């Protein structure tokens, strides 16, 4: 990978304080979409937390990602309100349409599929988030529309 990672500004924001590790990691992830290995090594040295300790933290929290995100990241809420409104069926439908399981990336790097335990828009259940934008009150019909819009975006 040839990207130049610049994380000193992030570390400076937290005075190179190791207790801000989770904040640092999430700022890095906001910037690059994931946690690149080179960056982790760099952080480890600069704030003096061993890589293995860092790995302990990263693996504990569901939001940290070690792979670059796909072009379209689809997150299907599986919270309680969404569950009783059919979120599981929606997820299964999307899984079979995209031929992907939750947690996977499509081989062409176009889609990644995830679940989340609630994004707090429960009144609009069941919810789906695509690249940060929340869509509510989903049915098979709205999902078909959303997916085909992504496909069309591809062709353009």
């Amino acid at each position: 990978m040839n990207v130049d990672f610049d994380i000193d500004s992030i570390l400076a924001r937290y005075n190179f304080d190791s207790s801000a590790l989770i904040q640092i990691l999430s700022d890095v992830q906001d910037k690059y979409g994931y946690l690149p290995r080179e960056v982790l090594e760099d952080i480890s040295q600069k704030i003096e937390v061993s890589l293995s300790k860092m790995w302990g933290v990263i693996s504990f929290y569901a939001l940290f990602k070690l792979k670059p995100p796909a072009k379209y990241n689809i997150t299907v809420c599986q919270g309680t309100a969404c569950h009783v409104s059919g979120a599981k069926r929606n997820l299964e439908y999307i899984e079979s349409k995209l031929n992907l399981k939750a947690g996977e990336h499509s081989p062409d790097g176009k889609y990644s599929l995830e679940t989340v335990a609630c994004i707090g828009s429960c009144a609009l259940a069941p919810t789906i988030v695509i690249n940060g934008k929340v869509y509510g009150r989903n049915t098979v019909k709205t999902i078909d529309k959303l997916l085909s819009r992504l496909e069309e975006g591809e062709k353009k």
Partner: protein
Amino acid sequence: MNKSNHFHDITEEAILYSKEKHNKNRIIIGYGTCGIAAGAEEVLKEVQQVLHELKIEDVIIEKTGCIGCCSYEPLMDIELANSPRVSYKNVKPKEVKEIIDKHFEGELKKEKVFCMFDEQENIIQNQESWKYNIPEIYSGLPTFKSLPMLKKQKRITLRNVGIIDPENINDYLARGGYQALYKTLTALSPKEVIDEIKSSGLRGRGGAGFPTGVKWEFAYNAELSKTTEDSIEKTEKYVVCNADEGDPGAFMDRSLIEGDPHSVIEGLTIAAYAIGATKGFIYIRAEYPLAIKRLEIALKQAYENHFLGDNIFGTDFHFSIEIRKGAGAFVCGEETALINSIMGLRGEPRPRPPYPAVSGLWGKPTIINNVKTLVTVPVILLNGAKWFSSIGTEDTKGTAVFALTGDVKNSGLVEVPMGTTLREIIFDIGGGVKGNKQFKAVQTGGPSGGCIPFSLIDTPVDFASLKKLGSIMGSGGMIVCSESTCMVDLARYFMTFIASESCGKCTPCREGTVRALEMLEKITSGDATIDILTDLEQLSLVIKDTALCGLGQTAPNPILSTLKYFKEEYIEHIEQKVCRAKVCPGLFNYVINDDLCIKCGVCQNVCPVDAVFGSKETGFFIENRLCISCNACFERCPKRAIEKVN
């Protein structure tokens, strides 16, 4: 500079500013996360476009938080100078032009009107309420407070949400914001603050209901026990606002922060003063980006106005707040795990005692309070403990805030006096079950709570009475389940959640929840025998008794409560291999009703696993052995010809 005069000045200015606002034309859009998801962004764009097109000038466009009537989002309010604010519901971008055009011409698009605000009430005593003059054409419009959804509500914690512009500190100040902090710092001793909160009877709204004043007193006294002979130096202490809101299906704290972020800052600062802390954290889940953004803005404004920082209001009290984001772990809502997470560690809990009030962040006395608890504090200090304790029940004073969701007509935010019955909340406020379905149960307390059946619907809500039913009050998630929710599947759902969120530190929770999940999966797939129910109950009781932290200790509640109230559904799954709610795959079939079928082929097209066979000539049939029960054909059939049968 005299900082106290400074405060009076900026408050005066803010009040003036807010009065002037009512002399202008305004369009106000509900811009919380759910409003945006429902389409508020598109509506906002359209409003800007339409104003330009219609050449209407001098209109202030404002965003506000979620007023809690989520089923009616997007909401667009228009307030002409000195006239009541009229709220329009379920506004689609293409309707914006007509609504605005009419409204500015002195007409109303009646069928889109949600309500009007005839006054802007202020819960803080001795503060002015804004009253509008009501023009002729508005007569007959329902007022906000008279809506069935609102009639039984009493909004103390939610006092500003959906009314003020959360990104404008003047709006908060004009409604009595920071008055309580001012009073606290300039007129009350820490001990007096603690006594006031104690005598108000306020109990923590994060789930456990621990008396807030008592908790603060622990932390306050923690210092005294440390100052023995030599130390003149004060022990460092911390205050933390718990905005982790891990209960999936709850959004009270998110809406509060998005809609009224300054009230959280004010409450936390008062707590800090009471216990003698100079540093505070707001621990908020990363899944709430808008709430984080609004908090950041509010913090900046609070520093700029010297409500945070050094020598607040010219006193010798210093206090600063930092935001700490979570990273997607439910257990981090538990206070000892949260402490670890703030310190940058794995969010694993530890046994208590010692309680955080004695030994918390970096081993120092730390109090942790929920968002709603802190937001209630300023009002108590302004209106008095007596006022607060006159609301609610013997067991729990004040109001309860719920996020009402699921199969209910009016989903949204509800704040009612403690002691209001479940029936009133679900049927009077919530409007009952959606789509002519039968009510089956209401789930409260999230993964730590339970399911309450219809027979107990007249139970008044407070901490004690919900606990007696085997559920808990929790932090306020309330999910209405209809006949189309399978109670066994719901228990399975919660166990899936807990099994994946268990931090793994203690065996009963790590292993026990996985075993319980396996049993539930056996039942929902029709592979269990009846003696499994005894095992499941036994295991649940063991986990409850032996788990390390609150997560494990309460995790079996969804199982135990459904076993108690809905045992017949478990038995049906096991003995008749039937899921009466038609949710559990394999325990019901999809069939096509030939009398209704028009052979259009939609079901075949939409089926993602090719389980629909046949052709437009011969008609279609569904091979249920291939079916994954995604419900696509059922939902898409234009003639509703697909039926689910047991």
